[in-house]
């Protein structure tokens, strides 16, 4: 399990945009995985199986934590994304813009972007992992790209 942990935490953090939420999502996901370990028929697919469980949990945690009601009653509970230092100013601009755009995506959109572009799953696999039709995945990817491209408008190259 330790071999998967860092990857799962990174995956969850990209979806949740919050390290504490991501840690919660991974813990919850690992609990679920342990309980349903009998359902894993093909051990060679452990990685995809764990990614699916944790990605879904990350979406759930993210939606729960970032509901409008939660923000209203506890606006300071969500510490913003801490940006890693980057030496290249232009790249920082692009990175900042992309991160800002990523924040504005829905958790479901982030999940498909992360699974498809970061984890390298195909659209078909991503659809199966998040439990939606392929067309929905394509639609979410398209909308996410539109949003992110819009954030990049005005960034000097």
């Amino acid at each position, binding site marked *: 399990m330790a071999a998967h942990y860092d990857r799962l935490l990174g995956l969850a*953090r990209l979806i949740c945009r919050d390290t504490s939420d991501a840690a919660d999502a991974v813990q919850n996901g690992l609990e679920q995985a342990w309980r349903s*370990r009998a359902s894993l028929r093909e051990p060679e697919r452990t990685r995809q199986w764990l990614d699916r469980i944790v990605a879904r949990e990350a979406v759930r945690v993210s939606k729960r934590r970032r509901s409008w009601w939660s923000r209203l009653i506890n606006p300071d509970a969500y510490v913003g994304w801490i940006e*890693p230092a980057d030496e290249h100013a232009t790249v920082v601009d692009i990175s900042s813009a992309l991160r800002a755009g990523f924040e504005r995506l829905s958790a479901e959109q982030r999940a498909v972007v992360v699974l498809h*572009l970061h984890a390298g799953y195909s659209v078909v696999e991503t659809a199966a992992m998040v439990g939606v039709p392929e067309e929905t995945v394509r639609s979410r990817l398209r909308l996410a790209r539109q949003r992110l491209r819009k954030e990049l408008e*005005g960034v000097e190259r």
Partner: protein
Amino acid sequence: MSQGFSDERLDREIKRLMAIDAAHRYGAPSAIEVAQRIGTRRTGQINNRLLLVAALMAMAVLVALAALLLGSGSPQPRPLRDVHNGWIAFSTQPYDEAAGTDTDQGGDIYLVREGVGQVLVASRGDTKASNICPSWSPDGSTLAYGTRDGTERTVVLLAVGDDGSIINRRSLDLPLAAFSPCPRWSKDGSYLAFPLGPGGIPPQDSTSPLTALNLAGQTIAGSLTDLDRSTIPCNRLGVGICALGDLVSPASGYGAYGNDQCQTVITNDIRPAPSFTLGAFRVPGLGAACPYSLGPWSPDGRQLLLSYDIGDFALTLV
């Protein structure tokens, strides 16, 4: 300008950024730390934990000094449920409540007291009925347990005397939707709560409803969400549904459950809200054998019953 961003270039930038962000640790615990704590609710920053541990150690030293100054004759805290004179109840039937299943082999309920021996209080007889999940009422006067016999589920209430004898016995029928016959006492002992699942299927998260019966066997009217979930032990462990064998000690200070490493985990992280775990204590398996079922805590909350085989059990001091 950014108008030059093609899909390919945009994807490349997104991948680059996500690779950086995914690898950045932000003070998160290491894989090893978490692997050692799999099953606990949440991880915390090591610096914070070290500070807390140091603070707790300092407090413990102060308390010990205060106890010495006040003299050794001060009364011990009165343990909860001491009216049983030390009787612990356990079932010979392992039961996976999370999955809502057992092995359908039948099971008996015993009372056991250290130094005295064990008393059979519920026998399956010649049937495959499973008598499972014994649970003492908060005042220690009544032992409740569930019975599964095919599709029938009932809960039995035993009034137990201090010598382990049964004074009274009665059964309550459970609603069909209650997938688990494992009773959970409310804090005041006025009702028993059971998790509900659609069509008897185990609930999947902490928002799943509960049903409750009063001691006359009547379903409590009103919204199930009105029930005080915090009084129900399995939910106080911070997991959505009851983990296999999880239990809260009588003083509600510790929870225990089995993990997938053949260990019994005892943790102080039993608050309903996510919290930073200060630590967890692990009891290894007995040789090559994993504890096949986790029994209850002793009445004073200092011992935990681990069953390794039918008829064989170990009392482990925690």
